[in-house]
C-alpha cells in the first residue's frame, strides 16, 4: 500500500511555521516515514508543476501556513485545495492573518509609496515601481498582483482544520500529526492543537482582584513574577486568547499578545480584549477613563496584533480618493472581484 501524501506550503509568512514543523526533532523522521512528502518548497526542491500534475484530492494532508496577500498565494490556495483531501490552516497567519495581516491598516498604494519612495534608505529617482507585466527582449515578465487587503486562508478557500499559534508549539504540532497518523480526526471546522479555555487557564500566576488605575508597557515597570500581569497594569491578551500553548510568554515575564486567537464562541478577539481591558479600570470619572485610554498608544495594534483580517471589520477604512488604484489594480479587476470572500468555518 502506498503511503499517505503530505504537502506543506507557505504563503505570506515568516518561515517560523516551517521551523515549527522541523522542530519536531527526531519525530520528523516518523512523519517522513509515515507520509510521502509530495510538496514542501521550503525544505525540498519541488515545483508548482509537480503539484499541478497530481490528481485531484490525492494529497491526504496539506499544512498551509501564511496569509493571502497576493495573486500567487491565492492561486496556490485554490490549487492545494483542489489537490488536498484535508487542508489545514497551520499557524496564526493562515488562521487569522497574523503579523502580515497588520498590513490591513494600509493598502497597496500606501505600502508601495512607503517602500519604494519614503523610506530614508531608498534611492529611486526614476520612481520605479514593480509592474505586474514587463516586456523584455526575451519576452514578457510577470509578477503576482499585490492586494490591498490581506486575507486568511479560510476567506479564500474552504478549510478543514485550524492550528493556531505563532508558531504552533512543538507539543501541539506533534499531537496534531499523531492524531492524523492514527486517523483520529475531529469534526471539520475545528480548531485543533489548542485547548477550549483561555491562556489564563494555562498561566500559573496568582490572580486576584483586577483593578488598575494605569496601564504600563513592559519596560516601564518591573513586575512581580508571581502575580497576574494584568493586575499589575501590563496589558495581557490572556483573557481573550485561546489556551493550549502552555503560556510560555507568561513564564518569562512577558504578557500574552494573543497569537492563539479567540477562545471558542468568541467572534472578535479584539472586541473581547478591549472589553476586558476597559472593565478593569478603577474609575467612574469620564475624564480619568479618557486619560487611561489615551495613554495606550496603539489600541488597534494591541487588540488585533495577530488577527486583523479575521476580525469583524477586517481592515481600516480606505480613502480610495487619497490612494488611487495603481497600475496593478487593472489586473486585479481583470481577475474578477477578488474580495468576494468565503465565510470562515464556524
Amino acid at each position, binding site marked *: 500500500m502506498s503511503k499517505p501524501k503530505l504537502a506543506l506550503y507557505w504563503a505570506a509568512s515568516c518561515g517560523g511555521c516551517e521551523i515549527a514543523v522541523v522542530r519536531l526533532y527526531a519525530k520528523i523522521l516518523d512523519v517522513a516515514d509515515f507520509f510521502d512528502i509530495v510538496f514542501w518548497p521550503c525544505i525540498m526542491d519541488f515545483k508548482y508543476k509537480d503539484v499541478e500534475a497530481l490528481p485531484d484530492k490525492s494529497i491526504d494532508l496539506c499544512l498551509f501556513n501564511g496569509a493571502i496577500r497576493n495573486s500567487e498565494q491565492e492561486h496556490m490556495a485554490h490549487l492545494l485545495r483542489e489537490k488536498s483531501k484535508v487542508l489545514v490552516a497551520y499557524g496564526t497567519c493562515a488562521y487569522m492573518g497574523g503579523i502580515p495581516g497588520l498590513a490591513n491598516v494600509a493598502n497597496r498604494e500606501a505600502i508601495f509609496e512607503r517602500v519604494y519612495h519614503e523610506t530614508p534608505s531608498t534611492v529611486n529617482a526614476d520612481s520605479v515601481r514593480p509592474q505586474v507585466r514587463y516586456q523584455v527582449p526575451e519576452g514578457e515578465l510577470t509578477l503576482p498582483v499585490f492586494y490591498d487587503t490581506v486575507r486568511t486562508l479560510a476567506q479564500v478557500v474552504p478549510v478543514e482544520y485550524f492550528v493556531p499559534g505563532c508558531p504552533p508549539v512543538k507539543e501541539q504540532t506533534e499531537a496534531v500529526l499523531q492524531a492524523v497518523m492514527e486517523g483520529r480526526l475531529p469534526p471539520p471546522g475545528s480548531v485543533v492543537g489548542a485547548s477550549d479555555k483561555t491562556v489564563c487557564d494555562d498561566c500559573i500566576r496568582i490572580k486576584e482582584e483586577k483593578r488598575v488605575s494605569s496601564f504600563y508597557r513592559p519596560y516601564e515597570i518591573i513586575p512581580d513574577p508571581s502575580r497576574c500581569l494584568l493586575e499589575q497594569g501590563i496589558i495581557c491578551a490572556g483573557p481573550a486568547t485561546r489556551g493550549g500553548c502552555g503560556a510560555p510568554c507568561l513564564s518569562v515575564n512577558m504578557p500574552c499578545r494573543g497569537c492563539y486567537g479567540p477562545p471558542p464562541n468568541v467572534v472578535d478577539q479584539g472586541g473581547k480584549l478591549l472589553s476586558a481591558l*476597559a472593565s478593569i479600570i478603577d474609575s467612574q470619572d469620564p475624564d480619568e477613563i479618557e486619560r487611561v485610554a489615551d495613554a495606550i498608544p496603539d489600541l488597534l495594534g494591541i487588540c488585533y496584533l495577530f488577527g486583523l483580517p479575521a476580525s469583524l471589520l477586517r481592515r481600516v477604512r480606505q480613502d480610495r480618493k487619497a490612494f488611487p488604484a495603481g497600475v496593478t489594480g487593472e489586473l486585479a479587476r481583470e481577475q474578477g472581484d477578488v474580495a468576494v470572500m468565503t465565510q470562515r468555518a464556524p
Partner: protein
Amino acid sequence: MVVPSDNHEPRIVGFLCNWCAYQGADLAGTSRMAYTPNVRIVRVMCTGRIDPTFVLKAFSSGADGVIIAGCHPGDCHYSEGNYKTTRRIAFLRKLLAQMGIDGERFRLEWVSAGEGAKWAQIADEMSAAIKEKGPLAWRENLKEA
C-alpha cells in the same frame, strides 16, 4: 468608491437600555413627535450588556452609524452598568477612530425615561450628520480597487 447622494438614508443602529433610553424613545413615539425613522432600535436590558462586538458587528454588516443610549450617570437600574459602558465606549471610540470610523458615526448619549424630546433631537442630529458624510459602506471597503 461610494459617493454621497442626496437620497441616501443612513442606517443607524441604536442600542437602548430598557429602563431609561428605550422608555424615552417610547415617550417620543406616544407623544407623536415627528423624528427620523433612520435609527433601528435594539432594546437591551442595560447599556452594560453591550459587548463591543455588537458595535463592530453592526458596522461590518452595513450600519452607517451606531448610537448607544442609557440612563444618566447615577441613575442605572443596576447601579453601575452605565459606568462600565463609559469605560468600554471610551476604548471602543479610540479603536474605531483607528479603523477610520469617526465620532460622528458612533455616539454615546444619556437619555432618561422623561426625555422623549431629547431622544428625538439626538436621532435627528445624528441622522443629518451622517447623511452629510455619506454611507460608510464597509463591504465596499473590503473589495480590491
